């Protein structure tokens, strides 16, 4: 993997990514609740949610790409992290993993 060119920018991108990954994770749980209510109980109380969630997910994609470009991920990894935002609970785990990886590499380059 390439070295991180701009540690400061990468650090900011990581923070943005962490916030968005958390938001999408929560939003996804709301979405699952909405679907259970709607198709399981014919309850349409949360029907308004899928639409804003789509836009939140889009911001997550932007955050992932932003981070990916700054820390030199390949396309495959970016796409996988993006898709992780579609699986309930997985996004929390991926966020932790990504944060640990990038923070570790950032420590290395910042220490120099």
């Amino acid at each position: 993997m390439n070295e991180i060119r701009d540690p400061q920018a990468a650090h900011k991108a990581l923070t943005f990514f962490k916030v968005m990954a958390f938001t999408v994770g929560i939003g996804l749980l709301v979405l699952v609740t909405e679907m259970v209510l709607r198709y399981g109980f014919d309850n349409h109380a949360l029907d308004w949610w899928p639409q804003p969630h789509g836009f939140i997910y889009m911001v997550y994609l932007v955050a992932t790409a932003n981070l990916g470009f700054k820390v030199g991920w390949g396309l495959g990894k970016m796409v996988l992290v993006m898709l992780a935002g579609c699986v309930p609970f997985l996004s929390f785990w991926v966020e932790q993993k990504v944060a640990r990886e990038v923070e570790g590499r950032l420590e290395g380059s910042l220490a120099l």
Partner: protein
Amino acid sequence: MEVLRTALKPRWLGLFALLVVILVSFTWLGLWQLDVARSKGRAEAVAHSAGRPVADLTTVVRPHQAFPDDGSGRRVRATGSYAADGQVLVAPRRLDGRTGYWVVAPFVLDSGGTLPVVRGFTTEAAAVPPPPAGRFTVVGSLAPGESPADTPSVPSGGGTAADPVLGSIDLSVLVNRWHGDLFNAFAFALEERAAGDAKLDPAPVERVPPPAPGETGLSWRNAAYALQWWLFAAFAAYMWVRMVRDDAENDRREAAGETGPKTDPGRSPEKDPGKDPEKDPEKDPQKEKSST
């Protein structure tokens, strides 16, 4: 130029093909959602107006009163009789691809007031029967008066029409032709039922289906989905451009790094082989392997 050369690498060309597929399919999906949004909006509007019961006309609007905001497409009922004279034709109108005339007759309510009723459509202006005599209960779909026509009172085909031809259902024109208090509305007849002794001549003119309400109705949620598909497509395009640019930048840096010291304070320590003990052992064995 360099970026262009980078874009022509097989890897980026392949991804470009993928990008084109994504752009085309996402654009199409967005259009499909927009279509869903339109038809849903229309269906909701139709269901909304159809769900409301047929109301007595005078409970919705009275003569000389302003047209109510929610009156369009409202199904109303009125009892009275058609005035024997005063029938007009409105042209040019289209129905199922044919051009012809709307047959509009003044309907005088028992309770007072005159309502223009679109009784039907015809292509034969000379063969329009007069409105039936007697008392009727008319059920119709309410509509606001039309704006004045650009070409008022079109004389059709050299005056072969038995009735005068107007360019639109302009109530300010009709109010001068017809007696009584005019409603600020007209109706598309859906049903004419004899009230009492009247005999209805069988289907004198073909009915005009009232315009579907909600032409402007848009299900905002589906419209947002459409927008999202297009944003995703734009995002994919951005990803491709950004990756190609990064790759071109990498190539440039590599070329610059080989030819001479490109000053970049952020990464010069890493480039310095003396300060990066991890990289040199990695690189050297590879070079040895490839040379052997």
